[in-house]
């Protein structure tokens, strides 16, 4: 149960090792800031993430426990960055190792989907004119 679960303003590591001699598959997901053009022509320059950190961490631990009850997870990491995240840079990293690959893909997918639905973290778009706007979660997008 040596899950690595963190919320931090530091840049995410490039790599989190969740390998195990009992794991045949490792699935990793990185959610990154994607460049965008606003309908009014402005360019996105970054996303600013804010967390209700104590709650977010608690939720991420609960997600890890729920995922472990659904899939035979060997090791697991859920890292989320807060603060400003530039274009192409990752804001979230999820890594899961399981005996077989299906389980790794399914658990990783479920973790990111559920994190995005429930975990107390918010992002604000930062535009090239200095304007900002909180992301409306009804919006499509990754």
């Amino acid at each position, binding site marked *: 149960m040596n899950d690595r679960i963190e919320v931090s303003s530091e840049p995410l590591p490039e790599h989190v090792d969740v390998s195990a001699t009992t794991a045949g598959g490792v699935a990793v997901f990185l959610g990154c800031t994607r460049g965008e053009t606003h309908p009014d022509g402005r360019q996105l320059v970054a996303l600013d993430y804010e967390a209700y950190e104590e709650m977010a961490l608690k939720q991420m631990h609960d997600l890890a426990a729920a995922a472990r009850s659904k899939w035979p997870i060997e090791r697991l990491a859920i890292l989320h960055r807060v603060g400003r995240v530039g274009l192409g840079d990752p804001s979230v990293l999820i890594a899961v190792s399981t005996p077989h690959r299906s389980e790794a893909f399914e658990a990783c997918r479920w973790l990111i989907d559920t994190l995005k639905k429930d975990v107390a973290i918010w992002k604000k778009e930062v535009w090239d004119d200095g304007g900002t706007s909180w992301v409306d*979660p009804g919006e499509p997008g990754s």
Partner: protein
Amino acid sequence: MPGQGQMKVNVKLFAAMRDATGADRVTVEAGTVGELAEKLGGRWPAAKPLIDRSRFAVNQAFASHETVLREEDEVAVIPPVSGG
């Protein structure tokens, strides 16, 4: 009957909710989460649509409008999340 079953609770405000109110923490007298939501909407009418779409957390777990509040509870408004 002011004060009956009403607790003074500290409420944390984040993201759009903090921007809408200009505060990251407010104190509200309310007996339940539902009452709290109503009072916040009364105090910041412009934020009411956002409050209506928000969830509430008591001691870092989502709580229903029926949840009864205690003075020492850590309460927070959770606007629609957008992490990831």
